[in-house]
């Protein structure tokens, strides 16, 4: 049985002195060793192992670690402590010793945050679901962003980065949901339709005015929530109760009239003016950030002109379709806007246009513009209904930039540079023209690699060829089929003869034309990052040789590109074999010349290569990524950021009709690959050595 008694003080001192090299560093370990000696054996081993690990990087850092770790050991569990260590080491790698020491010293803050986060909902983790949620709600598409203060400017809702108001994560998530719904309701049901600036200027106490207005408005929009989203309203009420937010009866009485569907923001304004000096507003609700009149006004003003001009443009196109004379005077009589449901449903936000009293179907863009305009103004003013004149075109005002930054034809002035966007999951938007991709030639290496590989896998290659041959396409007429297009006369004659002899009439009497054309184009995207150095790289190259040999028999069109790079301005793509190029000695030498480079910025590589793949005319197009780990790049393209961007790039490829697939040897891949590629679109090869044999098998399964 293992010895579980605590280590002797002397042993501890010896170990620490050795790791911390006290002879030269002059660090004092005795005092700390005493504390460690008093711990249980398990704790001791844990702590000492960490000290040793950190000391291998830096002795001073390890010494600081001992001082602080023994202090917090009781309040923090091991996994959490490990996270702290990892964070420290990352800081050390990236910013040097000075900052890393700071990180060690702030362990108390870390512990505090950690405990706080236990039941919290964290914006970064839930913003995916919440963004879909808010996009599903009617009206203008709103963006979500984390911010210091919770508020909305009518286009973006800013939310706290973390919510821990209640004990359970689920409830805190629901608080996010309610926060979003409340701010959405303010925008949707017209809280911001009346400019507040004049009232605030007049008022002696603008802050009080805003608070009271906000309180009246929340009563009004929540009545809408109760009518339109009753499930959410129930949740809101429950959370309110648990957060201790209650309104007294007096307040209920005052705001009663606002709960009617006919009530408008102007009614709240009147009430605010009337009661400003006589009553205290109830305590600010947690579910509404403070109204920021300036930011709201600025956003609305900026949007209004743009929307008006664009709407009139669209209207002009629409009227042309109906081939109506665009004589303004007569059109004004015939083109009308009406509220969909007499104005009292969904806040009167549903409007439609009628021409000669017939409703007209608006295209998607016009419909969402109309909704957005009505959200801002409350109705569609008559001057919006005047279609734009022929020379009235203000591209700057009326439209978003025409060019799509993703268009590969739109390149930076530098030749040979392809610019691609990148998805920032925190902002929930693309960073335009973010990555610069260049293609570099691979230096061919003419050595015995090819022969060696053939030799090593002789048996495997023969077998592969055989199995691939069986998949080869030909318009073959299959004979003696149970079903088919035509009668197989040979089989029929034989069968009839058999049956005359008293035998059984065979049922396989047809011929069938097999149409299984293999019209496939495949792109192999090979990870050339630094982490593949050594036998991963070797295995990759071997796998490619084997695959290429097998594919020769099959005749599928394929290309091999490597990718690597460092930071967004230096994404590198290495064409090893282009589509249309033959698999010859040069290509083999290039496969042999695949060398590990730096990092893996997968998103940019996927975007670039799916562009190339898309230009191939083929029935199915497959993008196979060969990788050894998570997307990772020097400039923060790691963790969730890298994964989310890669996932986006994969989704984009899929939208273009490409089937993305990933083969990886990363043992931890199960944690993130299903999220990246989808549950059935990846394979995990456990042993590096298996890769060459497995890859062709995977390919065969994938394409047959």
């Amino acid at each position, binding site marked *: 049985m293992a010895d579980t008694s605590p280590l002797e003080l002397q042993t501890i001192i010896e170990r620490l002195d050795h790791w911390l090299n006290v002879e030269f560093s002059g660090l004092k370990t005795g005092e700390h060793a005493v504390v460690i000696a008093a711990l249980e054996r398990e704790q001791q081993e844990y702590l000492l192992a960490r000290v040793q690990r950190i000391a291998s990087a830096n002795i001073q850092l390890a010494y600081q670690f001992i001082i602080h770790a023994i202090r917090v050991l009781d309040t923090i569990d091991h996994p959490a402590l490990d996270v702290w260590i990892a964070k420290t080491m990352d800081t050390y790698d990236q910013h040097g010793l000075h900052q890393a020491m700071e990180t060690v010293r702030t362990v108390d803050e870390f512990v505090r945050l950690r405990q706080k986060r236990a039941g919290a909902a964290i914006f970064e983790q839930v913003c*995916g*679901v*919440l*963004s*879909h*949620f808010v*996009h*599903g*709600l*009617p009206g203008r*598409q709103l963006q979500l962003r984390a911010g210091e203060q919770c508020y909305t400017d009518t286009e973006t809702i800013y939310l706290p980065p973390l919510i821990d108001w209640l004990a359970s994560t689920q409830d805190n998530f629901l608080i996010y*949901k309610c926060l979003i*719904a409340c701010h959405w309701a303010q925008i949707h049901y017209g809280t911001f339709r009346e400019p507040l600036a004049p009232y605030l200027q007049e008022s002696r106490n603008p802050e009080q005015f805003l608070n009271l207005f906000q309180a009246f408005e929340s009563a009004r929009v929540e009545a809408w929530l109760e009518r*339109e*989203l*009753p*499930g*959410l309203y129930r*949740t809101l009420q429950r959370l309110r109760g648990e957060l201790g937010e209650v309104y007294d009866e007096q307040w209920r009485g005052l705001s009663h009239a606002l709960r009617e569907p006919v009530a408008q923001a102007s009614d709240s304004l009147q009430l605010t003016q009337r009661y400003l000096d006589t009553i205290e507003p109830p305590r600010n609700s947690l579910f509404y950030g403070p109204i920021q009149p300036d930011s709201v006004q600025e956003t609305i003003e900026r949007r209004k002109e743009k929307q008006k001009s664009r709407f009139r443009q669209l209207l002009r196109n629409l009227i042309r379709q109906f081939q109506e004379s665009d004589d303004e005077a007569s059109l004004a009589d015939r083109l009308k806007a009406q509220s*969909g449901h007499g104005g009292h449903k969904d806040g009167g936000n*549903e409007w439609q246009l009628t021409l000669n009293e017939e409703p007209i*179907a608006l295209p998607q863009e016009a419909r969402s513009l109309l909704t957005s305009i009505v959200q801002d103004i409350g109705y569609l003013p008559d001057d919006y209904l005047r279609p734009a004149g022929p020379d009235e075109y203000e591209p700057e005002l009326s439209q978003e930039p025409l060019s799509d930054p993703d268009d590969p034809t739109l390149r930076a002035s530098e030749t040979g540079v392809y610019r691609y966007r990148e998805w920032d999951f925190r902002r929930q938007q693309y960073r335009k023209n973010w990555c610069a991709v260049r293609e570099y030639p691979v230096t061919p290496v003419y050595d015995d690699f090819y022969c060696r590989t053939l030799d090593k896998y002789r048996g495997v290659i023969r077998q592969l060829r055989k199995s691939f041959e069986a998949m080869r396409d030909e318009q073959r007429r299959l004979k003696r089929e149970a079903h*088919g*297009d*035509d*009668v197989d006369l040979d089989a*029929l004659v034989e069968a*009839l003869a058999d*049956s005359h002899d008293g035998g059984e*009439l065979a049922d396989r*009497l047809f011929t069938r*034309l097999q*149409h299984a054309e293999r019209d496939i184009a495949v792109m192999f995207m090979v990870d050339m990052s630094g982490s593949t150095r050594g036998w991963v790289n070797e295995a990759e190259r071997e796998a490619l040789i084997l695959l290429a040999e097998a594919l020769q028999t099959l005749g599928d069109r394929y290309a091999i590109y490597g990718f690597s790079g460092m930071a967004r301005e230096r994404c590198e793509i290495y064409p090893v074999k282009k589509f249309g190029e033959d698999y010859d000695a040069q290509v083999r030498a290039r496969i042999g010349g695949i060398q590990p480079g730096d990092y893996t910025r997968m998103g940019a590589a996927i975007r670039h290569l799916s562009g190339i793949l898309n230009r191939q005319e*083929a*029935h199915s197009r497959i993008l196979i990524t060969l990788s050894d780990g998570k997307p990772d790049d020097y400039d923060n393209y790691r963790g969730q950021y890298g994964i989310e961007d890669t996932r986006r790039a994969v989704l984009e490829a899929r939208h*273009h*009709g490409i089937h993305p697939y990933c083969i990886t040897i990363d043992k931890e891949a199960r944690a993130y690959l299903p999220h990246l590629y*989808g*549950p059935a679109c990846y394979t995990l090869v456990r042993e590096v050595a298996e890769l060459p044999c497995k890859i062709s098998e995977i390919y065969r399964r994938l394409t047959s």
Partner: protein
Amino acid sequence: MSVVSILKPEECYVREEPFYQPVGDEVAVFEAAYREKLPVLVKGPTGCGKTRFMEYMAWRLERPLITVSCHDDLTAPDLVGRYLVKGGETAWVDGPLASAVRAGGICYLDEIVEARKDTMVVIHPLADDRRVLPVEKRGELIEAPDEFCLAMSYNPGYQGVLKDLKQSTRQRFVALEFDYPAQALETAIIVRETGIDEATADRLVRFAHMTRNLKGSGLDEGASTRLLVHAARLMRSGISPTTACHTAIAQALTDDGEMVSAVNELSSSLF
């Protein structure tokens, strides 16, 4: 045990009036095209009532309706016909298209883009003013009677770049575009189709609109009228609204975990 009836294609009359709620002038246009012997292309998103519309028109015009669901293995003989061996002799058997032509019925090719491109070509002579179906194997031309009508459906929304209708095919048809009906109409349809109360139907439709807002930003397609009918049916047999929306709508729309949760949050907000 219920009796399973087996019908020959030419006997496929729609006997009872199917419930179809006209949205615009599609019924009049179809009837005019039918009178003028023009083939019809019905396009629109999935589950918006294309097939129901065809059933309704078949009932209205009192013609048998022969539906062929197209798939990428559908060959020309599958449509036109082939020789089979019966009792030691070969016998010709008409395919559904040939039977429809002979019977003067309505042949409805559902999801036509799924069919192989060379298969689509066999309908070309039927779809222009020749109105004949060549049967190569027998060296025959079947001339379509006046009552015959060719119709096909197609969803322009989610087909890949490669699965598009060829111009030579699409330019032979009168095209009717379908979309999900307006809110009030869609509510009425669900009430009528499932017998659910109007308030719930209204909420379901509003829920559908929310998912349709998500089209393009994570969903390929919003909830169709058909899915709403499914959810309403589940509710009628006692399933709670949130579960019904989850199983009949959210899970049916997507496999993306985040999106399913978001759609569930939307439905739990409404009910």
